[in-house]
């Protein structure tokens, strides 16, 4: 469904990502793990069209989306929950969700807003509150709900559990499970590697901008040579 081939992205002279390839099939939950600075966020940013790509191709649903504008990529059905959530703090919860659905028609947006309020009861309670007043856990739920508003075929999440209390981390993984049961395709960058490997169908390990290992979660957990990756992140 999503095919990344030989992707290289540079910041100035430094390659943040070197010849990275991955594929995501329909309905899969894919983990992307690795230490800080491995290029995980760069990979998601490149797929989402936010970062200039030096070489390589990205195709989605059979169409080439390499270097397409972010809005085209969202319209094609790929959405990103960015690192640090990046919710619009001075807009209400409802307005954040509406903006998440800026690419769909007003007729589709109404029912989807109701669906989100049911899927995220916490948000329903704060519907007209400025999003800047939400707690970390609530803000993360809003960021995910906002990404779902574009009716994506694939949801990419960048460190959804970052900075959350353990009980809220559980909530995030429960949410990933719920989304999986709805048949959604998910690509998650996660610092909590062990946990991610248990939740994912397959995973890719990144180190210094390169994909160094791939396999099912169980296979990767067995690999003692990757141990530093699991504890180091």
């Amino acid at each position, binding site marked *: 469904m999503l095919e990344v081939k030989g992707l290289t992205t540079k910041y100035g002279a430094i390659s943040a990502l070197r010849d990275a390839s991955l594929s995501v099939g329909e309905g899969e939950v894919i983990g992307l793990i690795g230490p800080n600075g491995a290029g995980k966020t760069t990979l998601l940013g490149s797929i*989402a*069209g*936010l970062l200039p790509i030096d070489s390589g191709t990205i195709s989605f649903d059979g169409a080439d989306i390499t270097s397409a*504008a*972010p*809005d085209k990529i*969202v*319209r094609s059905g790929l*959405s*990103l929950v*960015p*690192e*640090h959530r*990046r919710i*619009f*703090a*001075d*807009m209400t919860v409802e*307005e954040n969700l*509406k*903006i*998440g659905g*800026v*690419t769909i028609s*007003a007729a589709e947006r109404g029912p989807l807003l109701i669906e989100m309020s049911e899927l995220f009861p916490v948000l329903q309670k704060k519907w007209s509150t400025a999003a800047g007043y939400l707690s970390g856990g609530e803000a993360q739920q809003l960021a995910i709900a*906002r990404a779902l508003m*574009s009716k994506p075929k694939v949801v990419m999440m960048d460190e959804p559990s970052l900075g959350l209390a353990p009980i809220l981390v559980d909530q995030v993984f429960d949410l990933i499970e719920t989304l999986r049961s709805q048949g959604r395709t998910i690509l998650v960058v996660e610092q909590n590697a062990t946990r991610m490997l248990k939740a994912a169908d397959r995973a890719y390990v990144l180190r210094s901008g390169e994909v160094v290992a791939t396999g099912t979660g169980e296979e990767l957990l067995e690999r003692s040579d990757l141990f530093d990756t699991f504890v180091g992140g």
Partner: protein
Amino acid sequence: MTGLLQNLIDGLGRGSIYALLALGVAVVFGIMHMLNFAHGELITIPGYLTYWAFNNGWTWWTVIPLIIISAVLSSLLIERVAFSRVRGATDFTMLLTSFGVHFIVSAGFLLYVSASVKPIPRPGWFANTVSVGSLNIEVFDLVVIGVTAVVLAGTTWLLQRTMFGLSLRAAASDFDTARLMGVKSDSVIRGAFALSGFLAGIAGVFWIMREGQVTPTAGINPMLQGVLAVLIGGLGSLRGAVLGGLVLGLAEVLLRSWLPLGIQNLTTGFVFLMIALLFIFRPGGLLSVPQVERV
């Protein structure tokens, strides 16, 4: 008491025009992070068109839409020709670009039209007043205040209730994340310039009527008042811009009436003194926006 009330209405009338100018500056600042020193050209260009139109037998009824439409188109054209090329550049580059646009436009009128003052006839009702008790209120002030209230209400509705408004606010808050949501950067930037031009156009109608003339440098004062009002209100806040405009208008009128006769000409100086004092105590302006670090 009567005098104060009279001054308040006078100041609100003046401040309403500033508020419209400031809101236009603030809308563009929100999206581009650029203080647009060429904002006054959105009055100079329609000003010359107004002069031309009256020489060709137009009346105010047809000139008013001409001013508003030409302000919107000028704003879009300036964005296309100049600002679109410096998107993402440093704040300083954008600031210089806006200065450049200002100088090019005024030099253009100076060279190719005329350096002399071009008169524009004021509408017949301009000097009319209505008496309410002992108050003598200028009809012009009432019209300005009324129209501004309607325009501000409309703009509020646009920003709060339409997808364009939400996109504009989202992009002003975090441009990259707004793009990630699917907001098209070109459309939202052009939309911001169109809105800014529209607001300048409404302000321009009143400004041109009040001045009764146009010169190549006619844009400097409205630009300065708009930018000052934005700074007074708090850079980055749309409500602040409107508030700043009203405060600036009221301050001008009240100072002029309170200052002793001999130093009335120093009103502008005193206004700047008050602004300096404001910045000492509230460096961010009246409704300062906390600077959130972008990660």
